């Protein structure tokens, strides 16, 4: 009995018990459903063992949407708690757990997989490749991320959620002040997901550097691919820092080391430094692919080439370099002195320059264009003003002396939500709508899509603009309640209304997916948006092998020039196509990682050892395995091509 005690929730509430029941019922329903429809084989063959970048992309997408609703539910609860002074909807402990999981889920388990989803699906198609460089590793990346996410989410019902904030500052997150296993979940789950992300970084760098279609030089790559290249470069250099920081945090919590403790030489500021050396580049890992999406969308729907291609690339390179030189601005108030603050204040504000260049280039892309306002374009058009508000407040925060007044307040919260929501979330929704027909072969309803975009934009403004004011009025972030005399009531009530409107916006999106799945026409051809890059040169939905014949590129906008100037993309004869084999090992290995992590979190060492041996066995298996892939014969390719709408 004592053994099971550790899995109990330290601060139970009826809501948590209700969730437990709901989770168990959902799992039973899934198992019964899959068994009833005899889909276990299908699930295993087509999804769990797949190494196809398109399917992996779609699995990332589904996970991201699920996590969006988990994180969104957290957000609604937080805003509801703060909507009225001295509200008792949540107590301090639950509020702390909820804002912690909201932050972690939204950044690591929602935004990251969302960009991974688009990168996975789009990048190989944009460069005319058949898959990524290491398809098997790609599957491993996804499953590691997925198992990390699941591990983090069960903390809600097994053992207790982390409650030290998504930044998890020590010594608050140490054993002394966080006694439940919550922060162990944080350390281990993010570690597992982080390894997956690092592998993706390596995989996509090699893919983009080595697998571009003939003729596609670096400076002819579509802008989204460029953004993916830079993003993955940042991933490769930033994530190892997180790996070490989490390792040290884990050791402090599980093995009694003194890295960040109060005594024996421990140094709490070291965690903050390491966390943000990863954390600030992480922000650009999220925003650069978003910029890539906007570049594609704005250029497509202005019916013009992207203005200032070279400076767009240069600005991303500059942003990626600067992103590693600004981390101190997350704690200007740590007492480093005026000189250090001045240096980091200048580097921080300097990032506004390349970002500004991008904004102006997008505006100039519309110049003399022929702007068609579709749903993806609408998101992009809403992005520019909202993101500008978020961006300029970022410059204000960068002024370190003034930051002493903004730091730790709702002003900061308003700033980063005004950057991340219009910047990343709008971009992901734009990208989702834009590439949806390529993924699934039908389009999302435009009317519903635009309605959702407007509602989400209005919700964002309403939810976050008041926070600039309450922040300047002295409302610190992460307070679970405030007194009536504090004067924050109106602002917080408006924020709550805004959050509710945002939620309605996302419900409209879900309804749109359902509605379009039921009623949208399927005969939309391969290029419904009249777009410009290579992914639109193949069928929708895309066949397994992407392109029957490898395209040959002669210009920056290969597909557009093929349409308008008569460049010939597909010159060669059909040949047999080499494809990678599916494999269940990535899934099994990641599942073992889940067990391994679970064992660590609860210090169940036999479990750790057994699953550790299992993981090692998977690696050994991979070393000895002979895997040369297989060939799709020409006849089969021909047949597929004809079925999908005639050979090219």
């Amino acid at each position, binding site marked *: 009995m004592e053994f099971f005690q550790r899995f109990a929730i330290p601060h139970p509430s009826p809501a948590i018990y209700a969730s437990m029941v709901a989770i168990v019922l959902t799992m039973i329903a899934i198992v019964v459903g899959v068994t009833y429809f005899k889909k276990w084989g299908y699930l295993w063959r087509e999804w769990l063992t797949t190494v196809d970048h398109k399917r992996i992309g779609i699995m990332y997408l589904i996970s991201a949407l699920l996590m969006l609703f988990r994180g969104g539910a957290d957000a609604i609860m937080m805003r509801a708690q703060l909507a009225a002074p001295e509200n008792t909807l949540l107590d301090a402990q639950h509020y702390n757990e909820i804002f912690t999981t909201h932050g972690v889920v939204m950044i690591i388990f929602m935004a990251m997989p969302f960009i991974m989803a688009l990168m996975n699906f789009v990048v190989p198609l944009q460069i005319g490749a058949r898959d990524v*460089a*290491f398809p098997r590793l790609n599957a491993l990346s996804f499953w590691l991320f997925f198992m990390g996410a699941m591990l983090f989410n069960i903390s809600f019902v097994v053992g207790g959620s982390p409650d030290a904030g998504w930044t998890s500052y020590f010594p608050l997150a140490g054993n002394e002040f966080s006694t439940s296993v919550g922060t162990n979940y944080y350390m281990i789950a993010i570690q597992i997901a982080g390894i997956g992300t*690092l592998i993706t*970084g*390596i*995989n996509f*760098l*090699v893919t983009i*550097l*080595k*697998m571009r279609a003939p003729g596609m030089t670096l400076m002819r790559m579509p802008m989204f691919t460029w953004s993916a290249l830079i993003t993955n470069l940042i991933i*490769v*250099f*930033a*994530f*190892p*820092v997180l*790996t*070490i*920081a989490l*390792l*040290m945090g884990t*050791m402090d919590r599980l*093995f*009694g*080391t*003194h*890295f960040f*403790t109060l*005594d*024996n*030489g*421990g*140094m709490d500021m*070291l965690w903050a430094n*390491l966390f943000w*050396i990863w954390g600030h580049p992480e922000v650009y890992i999220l925003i650069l692919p978003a910029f890539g999406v906007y570049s594609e969308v704005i250029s497509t729907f202005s019916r013009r080439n992207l203005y200032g291609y070279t400076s767009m690339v240069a600005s991303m390179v500059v942003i990626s370099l600067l992103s590693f030189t600004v981390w101190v601005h997350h704690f200007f108030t740590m007492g480093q002195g005026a000189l250090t603050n001045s240096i980091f204040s200048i580097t921080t504000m300097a990032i506004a320059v390349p970002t500004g260049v991008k904004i102006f280039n997008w505006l100039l892309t519309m110049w003399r264009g022929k702007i068609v306002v579709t749903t993806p374009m609408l998101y992009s058009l809403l992005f520019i003003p909202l993101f500008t508000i978020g961006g300029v407040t970022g410059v204000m925060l960068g002024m370190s002396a003034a930051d002493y007044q903004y730091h730790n307040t709702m002003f900061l919260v308003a700033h980063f939500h005004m950057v991340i929501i219009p910047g990343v979330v709008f971009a992901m929704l734009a990208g989702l709508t834009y590439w949806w027909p390529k993924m699934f072969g039908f389009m999302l309803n435009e009317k519903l899509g635009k309605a959702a975009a407007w509602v989400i934009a209005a919700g964002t403004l309403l939810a976050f603009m008041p926070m600039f004011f309450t922040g300047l009025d002295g409302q610190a972030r992460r307070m679970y309640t405030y007194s009536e005399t504090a004067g924050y009531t109106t602002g917080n009530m408006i924020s709550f209304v805004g959050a509710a409107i945002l939620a309605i916006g996302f419900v409209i999106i879900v309804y749109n997916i359902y509605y379009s799945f039921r009623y949208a026409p399927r005969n939309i051809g391969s290029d419904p948006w009249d777009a410009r890059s290579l992914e639109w040169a193949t069928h929708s939905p895309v066949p397994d092998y992407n392109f029957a014949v490898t395209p040959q590129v002669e210009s920056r906008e290969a597909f557009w020039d093929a349409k308008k100037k008569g460049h010939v993309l597909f010159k060669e004869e059909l040949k047999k196509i080499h494809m990678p084999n599916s494999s269940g090992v990535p899934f099994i290995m990641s599942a073992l990682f889940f067990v391994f992590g679970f064992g660590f979190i609860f210090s169940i060492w036999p479990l750790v050892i057994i699953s550790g041996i299992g993981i*090692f066995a998977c690696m*050994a298996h991979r*070393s*000895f395995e*002979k895997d*040369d892939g297989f060939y799709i014969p020409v006849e089969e390719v021909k047949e597929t091509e004809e079925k999908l709408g005639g050979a090219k």
Partner: protein
Amino acid sequence: MKVDQSLPLEYGTEQNQMNILGFWIFLGAEIMLFATLFASYFTLEHRIGSGPSGAEIFEITPVLIETFLLLTSSFTIGLAIHAMRLGRQKAMMGFLAVTLLLGLAFLGVEIYEFIHYYHVGATLQTSAFTAILLTTLGTHGAHVTLGLFWGLFILIQIKKRGLTPATANKSFIFSLYWHFLDVVWIFIFSFIYLKGMM
């Protein structure tokens, strides 16, 4: 699988070239990993709490033996790759085996060193300094351990399958890994041991 005969065996196929590039990028990530450990080490070096300092616990002899073993193994893995390029499978396997034995000996001395630290009261829990010292050395040691298994697997594969583009590619990548561990050790030797003893 197309094999390009004009290139060395390990670069022979497109997949092989991608593997090698991918591994170089992985080494870039590894550099960041160890750089973070070193940065943390320099930050915590003097924060010894109530425990011993580096000068009090470091011993020159085992460190010199470790350095000698690892540097030599880096040389022998170089010879192994040279033999591989000449197509001499036996010599290649011999040098690879020597490399692994040297690595094993290194690991043995390192374990002895850790036991010594334990006896003089410098454990993982003693202070921030001992924790970062043992974590940095331990991370390197774990890399060596993993390398030993990996090298052994490659040795078995070469024995069973001969020098094919696949096994040559794995051996070459393994040699990159092994040289990298050697470079990390040189940094550990200079900036942890020598600096600590001075």
